C-alpha cells in the first residue's frame, strides 16, 4: 500500500506544509515560542486563493533564537545566510535541509519593533491563534496581525504595486483597514505600513524614513547603509555596520558561486567593487 518512500516524490507544497509542522513540533518539544508567518501559514482571509509559497518563514521569540538555531543545525540544517548577512535589516537567517528545503528564521520582522524586538514579539504572541498546517496545530498570528504583516512586508518591495497588498486593498472593507491601522499603531509599525501603501511622505520626519525610502524605491545601496548607520546610536553598532559595508558578504558570494568562496574569489569581489565605484565616478565626471 505504500508506493514510495522519501523526499524526491514529495511535491514542494506538501514538503513546505509538512515542514511548518516540523518546526512547530521542534518548538513544542523544546519550549520555544515561534509564530509561523506568511506563506501557507496565512489563509485566504489574508492572501488570494491558490497563492503558492516556496519556503517556510518563522518568527521566533528573540530570547529563543540561539537555542533554535543550535537545535536546527544539530538536526541537519545548514545556514545559507546568517542574520547579519541576509539583508540590510539583519532580520532573518536562511537555512537549508536536504529533506525540508529552505526556511527563513526571523529574529524580528522588519518594520515591527526595530528597537524593542522582544516587546514586538510579545505583542504578536499575545494575540496568536492556532491553525492546523498539515493537520498539525501551529501557532500563527491573529488574522489582523497577519494582514498587518503582509502590508508591512510589502514595504520592502521596489515594485509600485505589491500583489498581496493590492489583494487586501481590493478585498477588505474600510472597517477592516481601520482595525489594521489601529493594530499597526499598537505594533509601532506605521512607517512601514504607510510605506507599503504609498504614503511614506507622511513620515518624512521620522528617524526610519530614509531606511524605508531606500528599501521601497530604487536607490544606490549606499543610501540604505547610510540610513542604517543613522539609526544606530551606539558607536560599537556604527562600527559594526561600517565593517559590514566594507567586508565581502561571504554568504551571498557562496550562494552566487554555488560553493565556499576561495581566497582569490573573495579578493576579486572586494577589489572589484572599488573598480566598479571608480568606473561609476569616472562616468559621472564625463556625463
Amino acid at each position, binding site marked *: *500500500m505504500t508506493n514510495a518512500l522519501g523526499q524526491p516524490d514529495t*511535491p514542494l507544497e506538501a514538503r513546505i*506544509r*509538512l515542514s511548518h509542522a516540523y518546526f512547530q513540533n521542534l518548538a513544542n518539544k523544546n519550549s520555544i515560542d515561534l509564530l509561523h508567518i506568511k506563506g501557507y501559514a496565512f489563509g485566504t482571509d489574508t492572501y488570494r486563493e491558490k497563492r503558492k509559497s516556496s519556503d517556510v518563514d518563522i518568527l521566533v521569540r528573540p530570547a529563543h533564537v540561539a537555542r533554535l538555531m543550535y537545535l536546527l543545525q544539530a538536526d541537519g540544517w545548514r545556514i545559507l545566510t546568517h542574520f547579519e548577512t541576509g539583508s540590510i535589516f539583519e532580520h532573518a537567517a536562511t537555512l537549508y535541509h536536504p*529533506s525540508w528545503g529552505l526556511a527563513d528564521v526571523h529574529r524580528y520582522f522588519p518594520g515591527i519593533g526595530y528597537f524593542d524586538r522582544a516587546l514586538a514579539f510579545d505583542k504578536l504572541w499575545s494575540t496568536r491563534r492556532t491553525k492546523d498546517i*498539515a493537520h498539525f496545530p501551529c501557532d500563527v498570528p491573529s488574522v489582523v496581525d497577519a494582514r498587518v504583516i503582509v502590508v508591512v512586508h510589502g514595504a520592502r518591495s521596489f515594485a509600485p504595486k505589491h500583489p498581496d497588498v493590492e489583494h487586501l486593498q481590493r478585498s477588505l472593507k474600510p472597517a477592516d483597514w481601520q482595525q489594521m491601522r489601529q493594530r499597526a499603531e499598537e505594533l509601532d509599525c506605521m512607517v512601514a505600513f504607510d510605506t507599503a501603501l504609498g504614503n511614506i511622505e507622511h513620515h518624512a520626519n521620522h528617524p526610519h524614513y530614509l531606511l524605508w525610502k531606500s528599501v521601497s524605491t530604487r536607490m544606490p545601496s549606499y543610501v540604505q547603509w547610510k540610513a542604517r548607520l543613522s539609526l544606530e546610536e551606539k558607536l560599537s553598532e556604527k562600527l559594526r555596520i561600517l565593517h559590514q559595508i566594507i567586508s565581502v558578504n561571504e554568504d551571498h558570494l557562496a550562494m552566487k558561486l554555488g560553493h565556499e568562496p576561495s581566497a582569490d574569489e573573495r579578493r576579486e569581489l572586494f577589489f572589484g567593487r572599488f573598480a566598479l565605484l571608480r568606473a561609476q565616478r569616472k562616468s559621472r565626471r564625463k556625463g
Partner: protein
Amino acid sequence: MESTFKDDAATADATRYSHAPSTAYVYESEMVGANADSSTIFVCLLETSEILRLDAAGGLIWEILAQPATAEQVVAEVASVFQESEDTVRQGVLDFIASLLHQKLIIGR
C-alpha cells in the same frame, strides 16, 4: 500503555490505533493546482523528517486512524469502501497497520 502489534492476534485485540502525536500529513487533493481527485496522502513522522507517500488504500487506512480504531474496525471499513469481503482485505490491512506501527506513525492503546 502503548502496545506493539501482535500479528494475527490483533484481529481479536481491543487495542485502538491512532495517529502518533508527532505526525503531520497533507492530502494531495488539497494542494494548490493539484488533482482534486487524488487520494494520495503525504505523511510525515516529524521526529525523523521521513515522508511517506500513501496511495488509495493506505490513505484510506490513514484517514480511518484519524480517530482511534481497532484493527477489526479498520478491516470492516476498508472492506466496505472497496466492496470486498473482510477476509479478502484483512491480511493486507493488518500488514499495513503493523508497518505503520513499526515506523512509529501510529500508536496503539
